[in-house]
């Protein structure tokens, strides 16, 4: 029974996206394994991949645990971006097309095409904004699809400002107990799947609001320019440390739009406020939400992110492992239970669950 059915690489290749972030729920959940799998499978499909890291990847030794880590090999023709200071002799294998910006500690960022298969350490730029610029540069240079390897549990690369789509890597490292892990993952998937506000007028005003770099309220029935809704910016650039102050200014607002971080403290305050009067919280995108639990208040974003798939790593860094098939099954079921039919894959064992996932048929 040779596996020929749809797998993660097919999902990515057929989705039409130009860039994908591989982010992890924790350390050692198999981000780089997933990336290497995609590099090899997408290249085999004839796609030119672009490779970049949002932190540091492919180094021989884990900077933290001192254990060996999987290295990154760029196949011939792939586009890569990494810092000069970690490039070393790999530079001779690259056709260099740009030297730009500054990573900081490790020198300038070098962009090039692998003239032969090149083993690399990837070091990326220091901020998500610069990462977005770099992704676009690699696409301009000729990459068909850019793979962004996230670092640790950092989510910033998943922002729609940076990449088109996201693959969420998770594993036993998040929690050894399968049920607990599935529950935690369910919350993260819920968070990353936050949609736009269902009311069009509010959703479109919210998009304008996040450009203002000010916290804004949206009110209904005030006969403003945008249909039935009006935007009211207030003089606060952030909610951090002034959560209650801001909500005291809510009036009869239907929604509050936060351009920066939405903290748990703000969500707590919003929830008690919403007990008196319905108030939705709208964040710029899901990576700007710092909730540790379901907030008990309507939570939306102005730019939803496209969660393509979840990958699982049944093995922890200590070598303890779950049964991959069982793990895929439990996680997939847990996600379906909360209404998110996201395909789940273990790229090493080949186990997968695409049950109930619509649009998976290959044309």
């Amino acid at each position, binding site marked *: *029974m*040779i*596996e020929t059915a749809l797998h993660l*690489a097919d999902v990515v290749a057929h989705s039409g996206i130009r860039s994908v972030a591989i982010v992890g729920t924790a350390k050692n959940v198999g981000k780089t*394994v997933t990336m*290497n*799998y*995609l590099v*090899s*499978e997408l290249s085999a499909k004839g796609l030119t991949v672009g490779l970049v890291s949002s932190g540091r990847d492919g180094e021989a030794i884990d900077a933290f645990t001192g254990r060996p880590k999987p290295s990154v090999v760029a196949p011939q023709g792939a586009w890569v971006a990494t810092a*000069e200071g970690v*490039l070393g*002799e790999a*530079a*001779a294998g*690259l*056709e*260099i*097309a*740009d*030297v*730009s910006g500054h990573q900081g500690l490790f020198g*300038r960022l*070098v962009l090039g095409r692998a*003239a*032969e*298969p090149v083993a690399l350490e990837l070091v990326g730029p220091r901020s998500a904004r610069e990462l977005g610029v770099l992704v676009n540069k690699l696409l301009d240079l000729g990459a068909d699809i850019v793979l962004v390897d996230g670092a640790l549990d950092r989510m910033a690369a998943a922002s729609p400002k940076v990449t088109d789509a996201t693959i969420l890597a998770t594993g036993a490292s998040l929690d050894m107990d399968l049920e607990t892990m599935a529950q935690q993952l369910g919350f993260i998937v819920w968070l990353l799947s936050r949609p736009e506000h269902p009311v069009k007028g509010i959703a479109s005003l919210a998009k304008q609001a996040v450009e203002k770099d*000010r916290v804004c309220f949206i009110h209904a029935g*005030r006969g*403003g320019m945008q249909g039935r809704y*009006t*935007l*009211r*910016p*207030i*003089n606060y650039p952030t909610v951090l440390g002034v959560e209650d102050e801001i909500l*005291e*200014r809510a*009036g*009869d607002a239907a929604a509050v739009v936060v351009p920066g971080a939405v903290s748990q403290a703000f969500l707590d305050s919003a929830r008690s406020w919403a007990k008196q009067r319905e108030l939705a919280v709208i964040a710029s995108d899901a990576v700007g939400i710092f909730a540790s639990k379901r907030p008990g208040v309507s939570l939306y974003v102005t730019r939803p992110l496209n969660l393509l798939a979840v990958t699982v790593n*049944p*093995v922890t860094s200590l*070598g303890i*492992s*779950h*049964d*991959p*098939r*069982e793990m895929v099954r439990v996680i997939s079921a847990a996600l379906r239970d909360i209404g998110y039919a996201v395909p789940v894959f273990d*790229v*090493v*064992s*080949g186990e997968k669950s695409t049950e109930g996932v619509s649009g998976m048929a290959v044309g």
Partner: protein
Amino acid sequence: MEQSLGHEFDRLEAALGLWRKNPDLFTEMLGILESLKDPLHAISLLQEGQVLSPAELFILANLCACVRRIRHLQDQTGISKWPANTVPPGLEPAEVLLAPGSQGQPRFYISDAYSASLAETRRLRKHKQEMWHREMAKQARAVETALGVRISGTGEMAIRKTGRAQLEKARLMPELGETRQTLSHVYFKLKPTRDAVNLETELNLLKAKQRAQETEVLRELSGKLKQHLPVVEAASQALGELDFLLSKAELARATDATRPEIIRPGAGDGSGSGKAGLSAKHRGPGEGLSPGKGMDSGIQPEPGRNSSPGPDLILQGAFHPIVLNEVKSRGGTYQPVSIELDSIVSVITGPNMGGKTVALSTVGLCVAMAQWGLMVPCNYMKFGLYDFIYFQPGEEQTPGLSSFAAEIVSLKQPLARAGERGLVLLDEVGRGTNPSQGRALYAALLQYYLENDTAGSTVIATTHYHGLAATLGVPHWQVRGLATEALGLKDSKGPEAGEGAGWSEGSERTELAGDGLDWLYRHMDYTLQKVGPDTPTPQDALVVAKALGLDAAIIDKALKFHGRGG
């Protein structure tokens, strides 16, 4: 000095002229210059005779391409129309070295064209690699067929422990090595065949050989490039000059700036003597702003300039670009500064928040820009070069000194430069001390300049002391201040309370919630007007205080104290 500054403005005007004729070409040029990577480090490595890295070589290839494209564009307008120092010499020979056979986007790769032996090594290595892959693929297919399990993209094969027969079979296969197992699965990796192992050894040797040959190419290439060093440096320098010139032109266009008319100090006659002012007048290379440059005694302007025929410094419609941006960003309208100064000392008065300090800094900025060879953000400017500009630092705090002490210590700087022509901008000197003594001190300071300055300095002093100008007999300018309808303190609706008071139901305000500042910005007339004997004195301090939200009871008391209207 006036002459070389004049030349700089000529060059800038020439660039602006070319720009007007062919804006697209300029946009393209700026784009090319933006894509330029700093070549200075690569150049210094060449000078030291070091081997350049591929990244540094790319930077040089990029420089060559930029030079080629810039020269092409300069050719289109006629290369002779460009200031000589902004035309880079061609770098074709270096470019050929760096990118054999490429004329497109700059790239650098140690291509096979550099070395036949390197090409051969690479060919062989690639060939052996393919053989290795074929060998392993054959092995993989055999295993996959035999076991019916797919080897994943990560090169591993997982077999379930429940499939006992399959597992036994896998364990017996010499092609597979067991790597690890979990509760449910055993993981295998494909072992290389004997041929593959031999190929791996060969490949390692070939890789080392290839790296050595590549390093050799880099060494040779760096040596050859060193021979082109002088022309590479000259080109880099010229692109720098061009970048500077175009940036200045762009700034001038963006701020709609004007070429200042430069006159000889003290010789201003208001009839376009600018050209005459360019007659060789030695001032040394110290430029207007560098300290310690004495003025040539032979060209000191005549004393008693109060009676000189025309203004020394004329600014019409001048604006401060940073303040302008700030005003625009809050949606306000900006009122430009116009002023004509014909006395050693002039006094500006006006309400708090009335833009006195902005007026001062606008004058300082315009003069500084003009002396730096930048077009000036105004409609018209006429002035003579200064040896220094002093801007009394206002509210700045120096540790260990009171603001008054800091002010006095700072004031010693311009005073120590008597004999030099200074633009001395003073912002409410003495505000931090006893008002009557403060005023006396300010008057004395200005009187001192009137009596002692022989270099033709220009001193502009802002103050709240209204009689100061009259006491000294110098020109007095004032900020118009709050529009008259806003002055009805008691009847006026006045500024709304700020956002701090919360948002009241029923209000339709959708703009950025401001505070009293918004109201002030809207009603303040920042225009400077020259004060004659009959000009009324505005009293807006109390309105400003009210606008900023001071308790109304206090304002009422203040009105009584001031005896307004009675």
